[in-house]
């Protein structure tokens, strides 16, 4: 049975094992490779996408649960918060190896959609599930504050 959903505004339908994690559908079937594999057990956040507007760990989300949902990946991320976050990330060169940064940006964008001016504590709480092994955390925190200020404009 094909499973249908929307990814980055496009209707998609896949006919795969319904237990297949959304992560592997995005990558192997749809070739949206910006969403990364890091652990497979929702511990690192590298696979974070937006599902119906909320952050979701795609590595533990079976595709059967995505039927009819609206998914956004790093490739389709847009809007004022996303633009501000990505611009802030570039402005202070947050990424090192870069592998976790799609997930970091998906979570940071969601944070700013919910809290316009997050405190350090808000940031720590929201970003706690996103590991960066390069430890770019100092700049992640700074970039989120910078993006919030840009949005206050």
């Amino acid at each position, binding site marked *: 049975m094909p499973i249908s959903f929307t990814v980055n505004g496009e209707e998609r339908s896949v006919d*795969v*094992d319904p*237990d*297949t*994690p959304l992560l*592997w559908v995005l*990558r*192997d*079937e749809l*070739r*949206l*490779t*910006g*969403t*990364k*594999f*890091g*652990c*497979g*057990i929702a*511990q*690192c956040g*590298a696979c974070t996408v937006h599902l119906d507007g909320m952050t979701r760990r795609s590595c533990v989300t079976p595709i059967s649960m995505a039927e009819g949902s609206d998914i956004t*990946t*790093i*490739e389709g991320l847009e809007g004022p918060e996303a633009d501000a976050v*990505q611009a802030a*990330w*570039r402005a202070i*060169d*947050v*990424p*090192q*190896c*870069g*592998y*976790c*940064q*799609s997930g970091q*940006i998906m979570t940071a964008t969601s944070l700013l959609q919910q809290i316009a001016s997050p405190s350090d504590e808000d*940031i*720590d*709480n929201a*970003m*706690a599930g*996103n*590991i*960066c*092994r*390069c*430890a*770019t*955390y*100092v*700049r*992640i*925190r700074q970039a989120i504050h910078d993006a919030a200020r840009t949005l206050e404009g």
Partner: protein
Amino acid sequence: MNIQTSRRGFLTGLIVAVALPGLARAQQKSGAAAFFNELPGGSGGMSANAFIRVAPDNTVTVLIKHIEFGQGPYTGLTTLVAEEMDADWSQMRAAAAPADVELYANLAMGMQGTGGSTAMANSFMQMRKAGAGARAMLVAAAAERFGVPVDQITVEKGIVKAGDQSTSFGELAEAAARQTAPEDPPVKDPGDFTLIGTDLPKVDSSAKTDGSALFTLDVYRDGMLTVVVAHPPKFGARVASYDDSAAMQVQGVRKVAQIPSGVAVYADNTFAALKGRDALTVEWDESKAETRSTETMIAEWTSAAKAGGEWEVEKSGDVDAALNGAEIVEATYVFPYLAHGPMEPLDAVVELHDDEAEIWMGSQMQTGDQAIFAKILGVDKVDLHTMLAGGSFGRRATPDCHLAAEAAEIAKANGKGAIKLMWTREDDMQGGYYRPLTVHHIRAALNEQGGIEAWDHGIAAQSVVIGTPFEQMLQGGPDFTAFEGANELRYQTANHRLRWAKMDSPVPTLWWRSVGHTHTGFAVECFIDELLEKSGKDPVEGRLALMGEEQAREKAVLTRVAEMADQSGDFGYGVAVVKSFGTYVAQIAEIEDRGGVPHARRVWCAIDCGTAVNPNVIRAQMEGGIGYGISAALHSEVTFDEGGLIRQRNWDSYRILRISEMPSIEVAILPSTAEPTGVGEPGTPPIAPAIANGWRRMTGTALRRLPIIPVA
């Protein structure tokens, strides 16, 4: 980089044959000329030398011989070229150089590879010469076009001028390609630098914020099978037998094959491969496996460290006589096995043709990996694309090239076509190649003035190098990576001895960000801090007093960090200074008690790495190196049950630093005109001892076993 397009399609494009003597021959051999036309900016233009391509659209692409996994060579080496070309930073691009040892060897290694924080150090003059050569060719072309002597040409921010005539690199590229490359072009005086030493934006930040940066895992080839391998549950175990009947029933599983490192499951997609591996039944031969528990190993290692060990590495004076009858201060330090845990687990893509193989891989030792692929696959040509890698910290630089070997065995068992080998996080955590389990034992005696009368140091650890193809670099001597940082002690001692006990285990070990300094930095800096406290000395002044004239640069970073640090709070403050890979780093950590364990609130860091090519990258590496060091100090260890089973599987049991535990960090870079040294590793060693010293001075409790907060 369009990885879906075959390189062969570009062979018919315009190839401008110019270059340094010997390059044309090497290009024919390596295919580097074709590679140049795949670069940004369209075909044509000028390949000034093996490193620089000027395209008609005015972009300048620098081929980077070192892998980029966050430490910054794409930006740093591009800066060197842009500086000497007088290019505009906005026209600069970076791309991975092909794997070709004749053109792209690490001059510190004699093979193409990255490690030991050498990328900038070995490239500094080479890339500047390459840039200066390209500039000279562009200037010669401009002189012809303008009809003026070369000495009337000026170049600034990529604009080439003479009088009121002006043009761009792109417009000159084809004419410049016909110029003779100078053999030994002069480079700038450091006083004339306009880009080196400035905070240029990194060349790869944009692609790493929109998902477009391509890593090995992102490579998909037509008809490619995804492969995972069932690896032994204990180190040293081998496949005895396996039953793949259930695995072959999984939809999408195409093949199961035994390879030397385990049992490989080939499937149409990743999920099917993982499900197929779960469905395998494998019997393991554990007759040669490591079965000791971690506690047993620590007890054995501790005895060996106390006994001193068979390798006497350094000796001055008579330690035994000096310790005899003296009041002895002693300490034992225990360091666990550590996984590197790069965010992108190990992976490789192999496409096997009749007589050649094409590889996509985050290869840190291209020359070795190429040779292994050629040998196992029985092909003459191995076209290796060095991909961006999601971290390494040493993990991808394996002397035995085990990942390349595994990928090659998988491809060989499959025949023609493409395979992608993917390790899961569990494969990574349980796959070995750890920072060695290490125990230090130090005994010392002080004289009445607080000077060090004797320092007797024993280290027990496996060798990372002995028994590997890199062993020859030791020339029969001891493995310096086991004790580097404990030798050439920066503190004056009247009588000194350093011994190493080489321990043995089937657990494979490897260099881990800053290698021996990960533990020697801790042992030396914690022990000296205790000695200073015993004799009532200030941790900074006391260290300075024990250093000689040879330690001028250690003294400078220590003095600088003490000036920076605001130690006025009601917290613990700990200091450490470590020289590693030719770079000097001192740190002070501000420590608070967070539920009975130390939390670093703020860290001050002073670094002397010679000429600071890009201060922004250097600060980033200090921040990251500190975070990496805190992970290990607080949380990380790999341990074995009685019987040898590995306890840790994933990030839930192998804990690393999260954002809430990250301190704020202030970095000062000491001005210097010395040749640049590395920054990828040296930020890591001082932080753990700085935290432990701050904690001890605050609470009175010395921390001598890492991690501080073991996983229950």
